[in-house]
């Protein structure tokens, strides 16, 4: 039986404007269950609450109501420092836009998550260099991230997300700013991580072309889940692929 690693139970999130005059309800009673090894694609129009949901999963937001459980631990019971620790040890996060520490070169930026969890400087750089090789960016180690193209930056961002060997990869519109070639590379890598390395991937996108990659799809609209499906299409495609292989 598949192990449930994330459970979201009756999640509500309300944002209050700075002058406290208006309240905006962004999430309205979300219930989700994610199993180990899932490739979850959350999709929906802009402003539907996809990214807010992701931010709750990684502990960057706290619910107005409801609970988020990670490995059966209620994230609501953790303080900010404990949630930060969970984030640094369990999650690898990829954003649509790449963010960098400008004083650090590529390999140092990739090494930051290792330094955060207490690794030494040289050890961190050694491991970061290896992971850069995995995403075919080893030759750019000494460059400054902002000298690189968007696609290259996103690969480095992926390397940074993977350097800590996290069990869950969270990707918020990872291909949103990329050309087709770069986007394909990123998606291939995410698939590889999911299929070969058995990492759980939770990806937010509004690109429906990626739905077939998912083992689970979650459609959101106006702060609610309007559809939650097992990835029948991926299973169907994988089945057909196997049949073709047999025929060959």
């Amino acid at each position, binding site marked *: 039986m598949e192990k449930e690693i994330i459970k979201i139970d009756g999640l509500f999130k309300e944002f209050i404007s700075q002058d406290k005059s208006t309240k905006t309800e962004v999430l309205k009673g979300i219930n989700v269950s994610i199993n180990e090894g899932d490739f979850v694609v959350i999709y929906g129009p802009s402003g539907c609450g996809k990214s807010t949901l992701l*931010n709750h999963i*990684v502990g*960057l*937001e706290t619910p107005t109501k409801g609970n988020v459980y990670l490995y059966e631990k209620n994230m609501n019971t953790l303080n*900010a*420092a404990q949630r*930060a*620790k*969970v*984030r*640094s*040890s369990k*999650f690898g*996060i990829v*954003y649509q836009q790449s*963010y*960098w*520490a*400008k*004083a*650090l070169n590529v390999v*140092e930026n990739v090494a*930051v*998550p290792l*330094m*955060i*969890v*207490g*690794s*030494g*400087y040289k050890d*961190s750089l050694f491991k970061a260099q290896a992971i850069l090789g995995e995403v075919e960016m080893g030759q750019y180690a000494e460059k400054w991230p902002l000298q690189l193209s968007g696609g290259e930056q996103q690969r480095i961002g992926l390397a*940074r997300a993977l350097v800590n060997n996290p069990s869950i990869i969270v990707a918020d519109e990872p291909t949103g700013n990329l050309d087709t070639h770069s986007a394909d590379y990123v998606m291939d890598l995410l698939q590889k991580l999911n299929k070969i390395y058995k990492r759980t991937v939770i990806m937010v996108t509004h690109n429906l072309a990626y739905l077939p990659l998912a083992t689970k799809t979650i459609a959101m609209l106006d702060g609610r889940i309007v559809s939650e499906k097992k990835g029948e299409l991926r299973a169907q495609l994988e089945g057909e692929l196997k049949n073709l292989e047999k025929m060959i």
Partner: protein
Amino acid sequence: MKLKVIVRLSLKNLWVKKSRTIITTLGIVIGIGSIIFLVSLGYGLERLVTSQVTNFEAFTILDIPSANLKTLKIDQSVIDKTSALPHVQTVVPVDSIAGRLGRDGTGTSAETVVVAAGKDYWPMASISADKGSLPLADGQAMINRAALKLLGENEDQVIGQTMDLDLLIPAEIRSDNADSVKTVEKVPLKIVGVEKDEQSPIIYVPISLLNKNGADKFISLKLKADTKESIPELRKQLENLGLSTEYVGDTVDQISQVFVLFRIVLAIFGLIALLVAALGTFNTLTINLLERIREIGLFKALGMQNADIYKLFVTESFLIGAFGGFFGIILGLLMATAINALLAVFASKAGADTINLFVTPWTLELVVGLFSILVGLATGLYPAYRAIKINALDALKYE
């Protein structure tokens, strides 16, 4: 996070904005350099003044004057009592009377002060012979330049000559119960040395000269203790014997108090420079913070603890303070040394003694260095506090 990693990241953050960091640190360097330079001047001037007043040995010496004593007179019994006190090494008597000095055949004479003392007195009172030697034996005398001038004598020829001294011994230092001044005329004395003072005419003779002529009391005693530390206790014991004491340390303390105030005034000038520099550092760190808001958001999203983010910013300000302090001390020392060297050149050209106008005790360097670090840290506290208050998600959206 490991502290070494935090320091490394902080150094990288400072280095990536080289010119800004250098200019900010330069402000601290100038501020700290000014403090070192000015306070060293204060110390140097104090040392110059106190060295004029005394030497190191003088701190173990007490004067016991008879002037303040109403009933007790200082005689041999007082010398014996004081010599018996613990920690006392030497007690020497001194008398000072009026005299008239002349030479047979020349017809010239001069009114002079006669200082008569035991042989240990001269070094204790920092009296030395500029030419010849001290009057250590009976029948010897040392004359100063002021007296020589009055007599019209040549200092190169006077040594070895015999002069006549009339002694005017007051009743206060005699025990013969006569009220008037006792005059002893034409005591022949061999001049053995010349003392350099040119202000007032003095002739120095052994105390035995006055003892032989009926003076058995003394206007004061000089007492040498074994250590400087035993002086306070010794003063108490002497006061218990009914004696009053004068100590060069009292004068030096008074001078020091004036110079403490002087140094504070000088330090305030330096502090003004440092305050301006500290405001510059604060400004730089605040700008650094505003430029790195997204980076802080990223670090938080990646799971960096607030405590580590705080340390990252405080370490940067610490490093500015530490580097500024280090190079500031070097700058202050260089300026002080340069002026001391320049004065030494002028002094040697003028044939005068070398003086050190700037003196920098290592404690000053230590205190100012620590102060610089403290100022650096203080300027970083608020930006560091602001950094940890930043919301990660807001920071990532920050333009």
